[in-house]
């Protein structure tokens, strides 16, 4: 049996109280004290919300105190979206809510009941006075003083959101979790409504910075806010009032910490991590933290080791939620671009912003999906699919052969609108490995031409080719052995925007200088000419994934001090020169696509609006600017890739995992897009196309069988 512990919880919110209850229940010999700065009955905010998943997990693991919380909660099934006066219901999306005060009172009573000592009106800023404690739990919330004092150890980051929001309440009990969208003369507003009692709903109003300023809200008092919102939302309140409770306008802060524990001090709940309220997970994460920490203490007697276990168990789950929340928050930061959409498609776009996909929604509410399909139309979906031919080896001369033809036939059998026949190098030094196909000799062009000609009789799809210069990722072994493994001999000198090796043991490329620019531009133009000669219907220039042109675009690989480096316009200077040269040769009536890495997938998250740091790489705003520039120079279609710009890129692999940047580029930058990544079957294709996030979908090459 483990020894009894002296435990201090700083902060009597859900995390601290629930942990105290569980730990004391598990071992009544523990001496646990909870310090709370406020009085027992002071509480801010109205109701808190839980998703159905939370309820399941906690009720399975905690059969003693959780049932009481469930009993005091209200549960509703459909999620309601009210969009310009029209109501869309989505069934099967369960949420519950409980008044925050009631939740705290239940936990306070349970804590007192099992013998936890509660000290209210006790503000703790410095934990050094608890020298005797075995464990100090910093559950002191989003503004955690302990996190602040020990910042050198926890290394917190605080990302400020792009929107403005305020927590209000209303005496109207809405009948379900409701998202509500309305426009005033100043701009668009979104409201998150969580009914939590017979006569109360939480009412969070969110808007963009511009609207907030135009409405003069930066100088609003609480009463001004109430007045403005009651005027705007009055028609939907049925005469009910809005209520305030320290309802100031704020920017959401996403908290992350490099470490969650130091010695015997551990961060829990909001002190350790926050996630935008639109995914309803703040209290859920706090309570799951409490459960995990209490269980780790039961298993492991050594405190620092138990804290390591706790963090290892919780961090991946928390980061997963933070990533979903970040995607959801990005939607809530940009929904103004979509409010003019028809209601069902708008709802589908909203619901597919992070967690849901076409099939998971259809399983919940087939009626809603039928409505979306009727509104958007599902004819010609197949013509908007691009089937990529899987990578195939060419001869040593870069000439495509029988294998290419055979793979192309297999792709043609899928009867999609577009086929991508493969990737061809624009020069011998632009190859990734020795067996890459090329478009830099007449022999190669002729071989491609023969393959295409033989396809024409049976294949109605438009067949395209992607051209690339590998840059710093060149001169590597065949990819059937892995990625980016340098050739021992036979390697050739590499080029890049800046002299940065792709991998630590890889060759350091030479920085491109004067003559190189002209030479590379000519290589691309010549490859385009040969692609035309071979009669390809469309052409894609690969400007992403850390290849030569991509190294100019990402700030992680372009550290040039000259006019080709710096802000996004300068970084785009050379890529646009290449595009111009190709466009001059490639006929207007044949599609010209450019593939970019719209995010660098570094630091484990997509860069989000307003949250830029120098290590984040290309931001969403920059990706849209890149797309606009490409379109202005004659690019017809932007293929939205992500990552691989540096070896430390870590994409969030999953279904349709890069469709969100494709959607923003299409709808906000107004440039047609092709979505790529995690698209494997018709359900994924419908997720992307019905939500209006792309004009075309490229299916994963390893999943072509799913079509």
């Amino acid at each position: 049996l483990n020894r009894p512990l002296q435990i201090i919880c700083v902060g009597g919110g859900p995390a601290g109280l629930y942990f105290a209850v569980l730990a004391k229940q598990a071992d009544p010999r523990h001496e646990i004290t909870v310090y709370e700065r406020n009085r027992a009955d002071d509480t801010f905010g109205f109701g808190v919300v839980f998703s159905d998943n939370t309820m399941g997990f906690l009720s399975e693991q905690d059969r003693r105190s959780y049932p009481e919380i469930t009993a005091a909660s209200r549960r509703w099934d459909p999620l309601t979206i009210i969009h310009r006066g029209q109501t869309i219901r989505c069934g099967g999306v369960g949420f519950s809510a409980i008044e925050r005060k009631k939740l705290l009172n239940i936990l306070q009573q349970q804590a007192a009941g099992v013998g936890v000592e509660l000290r209210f009106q006790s503000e703790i800023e410095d934990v050094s006075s608890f020298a005797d404690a075995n464990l100090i739990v910093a559950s002191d919330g989003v503004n955690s003083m302990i996190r602040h004092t020990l910042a050198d150890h926890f290394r917190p980051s605080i990302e400020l959101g792009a929107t403005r929001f305020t927590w209000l309440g209303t005496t109207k009990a809405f009948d379900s979790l409701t998202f509500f969208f309305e426009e005033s003369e100043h701009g668009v507003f979104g409201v998150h409504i969580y009914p939590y009692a017979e006569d109360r709903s939480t009412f969070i109003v969110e808007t963009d910075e511009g609207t907030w300023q135009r409405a003069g809200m930066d100088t609003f008092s609480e009463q001004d806010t109430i007045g403005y919102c009651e005027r705007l939302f009055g028609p939907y309140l049925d005469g009910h009032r809005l209520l305030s409770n320290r309802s100031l306008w704020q920017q959401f802060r996403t908290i992350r910490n490099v470490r969650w524990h130091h010695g015997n001090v551990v961060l829990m709940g909001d002190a350790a991590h926050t996630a935008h309220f639109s995914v309803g997970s703040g209290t859920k994460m706090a309570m799951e933290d409490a459960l995990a920490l209490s269980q780790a203490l039961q298993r492991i007697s050594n405190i620092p080791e138990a804290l390591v276990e706790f963090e290892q168990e919780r961090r991946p789950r928390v980061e997963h939620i933070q990533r979903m929340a970040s995607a959801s928050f990005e939607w809530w930061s940009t929904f103004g671009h979509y409010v003019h959409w028809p209601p069902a498609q708008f709802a589908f776009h909203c619901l597919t912003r992070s967690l849901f996909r076409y099939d998971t929604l259809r399983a919940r509410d087939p009626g809603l999906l039928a409505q979306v399909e009727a509104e958007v139309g599902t004819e010609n979906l197949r013509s908007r699919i691009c089937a990529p031919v899987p990578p195939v080896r060419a001869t040593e001369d870069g000439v495509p052969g029988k294998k290419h033809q055979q793979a192309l036939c297999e792709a043609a059998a899928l009867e999609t609108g577009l086929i991508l026949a493969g990737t061809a190098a624009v020069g011998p030094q632009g190859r990734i490995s020795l067996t890459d196909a090329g478009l830099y000799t007449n022999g190669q062009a002729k071989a491609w031409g023969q393959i295409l000609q033989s396809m024409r009789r049976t294949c109605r799809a438009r067949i395209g080719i992607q051209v690339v210069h590998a840059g710093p990722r060149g001169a590597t072994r065949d990819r059937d052995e892995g990625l980016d493994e340098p050739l021992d001999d036979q390697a050739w000198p590499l080029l890049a925007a800046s002299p940065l090796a792709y991998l630590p043991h890889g060759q350091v490329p030479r920085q491109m200088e004067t003559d190189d620019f002209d030479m590379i531009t000519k290589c691309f133009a010549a490859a385009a000419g040969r692609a035309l000669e071979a009669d390809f219907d469309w052409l894609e220039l690969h400007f992403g994934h850390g290849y030569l042109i991509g190294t100019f675009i990402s700030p992680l690989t372009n550290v040039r001090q000259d006019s080709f480096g710096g802000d996004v316009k300068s970084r785009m200077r050379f890529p646009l020169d290449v595009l111009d040269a190709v466009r001059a040769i490639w006929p207007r009536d044949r599609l010209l696509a450019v593939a970019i890495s719209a995010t660098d997938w570094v630091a484990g998250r997509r860069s989000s609006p307003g949250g830029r740091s120098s290590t984040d790489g290309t931001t969403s705003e920059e990706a849209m600017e890149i797309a606009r520039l490409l379109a202005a120079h004659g690019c017809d279609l932007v293929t939205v890739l992500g990552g691989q710009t540096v070896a430390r890129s870590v994409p969030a692999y999953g279904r349709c995992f890069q469709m969100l940047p494709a959607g923003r580029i299409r709808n906000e930058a107004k440039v047609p897009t092709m979505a790529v990544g995690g698209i494997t079957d018709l359900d994924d294709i419908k997720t992307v196309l019905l939500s209006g996030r792309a004009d075309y979908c490229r299916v994963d090459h390893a999943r072509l069988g799913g079509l």
Partner: protein
Amino acid sequence: MRIGIALPTAIAGAPASLLSPWACSADAGPFASLGVHDRLAYDSLEPLTALAAAAAVTTRLRLACLVAIAPLRSAAMLAKQAASVDALSGGRLTLGLGVGPRRDDYELAGVPYESRGRILDEELMALRPLWRQGVPSSARPQGPDLVLGGLSDRALVRLVRYADGYVHSGGPPRAFRSAADRVRTAWSDAGRPGRPHLWGMGYFALGPGAEEVGRAHLHHYYAFAGAFADRIAAGLLTTPAVIRDFALGYEEAGCDHLMLFPTVADLAQVDLLAEVAAIL
């Protein structure tokens, strides 16, 4: 989908003398491979040593190490051991690597548990070049088949950079399917040719009285995992019908190779599983 049977080398108290007859019996049966687990702080045989012994008495079975806890060994030692088994078996080794979930293994090896991900990264970077140097020569110049466990995004980045495939840590077919989907997505995204090899795993116990012994073994083996051990023990496959359903579920989910691990150290288990595998 191919079916493999694992050696009883990680069942506490199982005699080492069981290995040879077990391997011979499997070699004569309808199996495609012979598997082993790795654990240091436990009553078990060292997996690559066990596969070397199995190599000597088998002729055709693929020898699958699922998975070796890579950071417990230095990269050079691991490369040499794996190349040796591959050479001794005529190229039959599939080397699965992972970090394992158990702190006590690391403590015993004197390797910092907290650094396990970084150590695995460094080892993966070193392995193929070591194999290419060929001392000794594995059957293929680039070394044995390499598969990795782990499903975090970081693990998938590692997998598509270095490995030939993925080995799933167990669980129902549905969980395998969603794991396999993510692996194939990462594979496509990276531009790797072909498809990743996808390995699944399950535990079985067949015959009268086997279920109880099997569950007791799993509770003992997974004691470190707390409540999770119950879930693993509950997933034990104890009848031919259940094994068939499980295997069909894995096959539908895209599994290439399903390895079934024994939980009862009795030679009769090989024949009992062979009867099921023969008609799959």
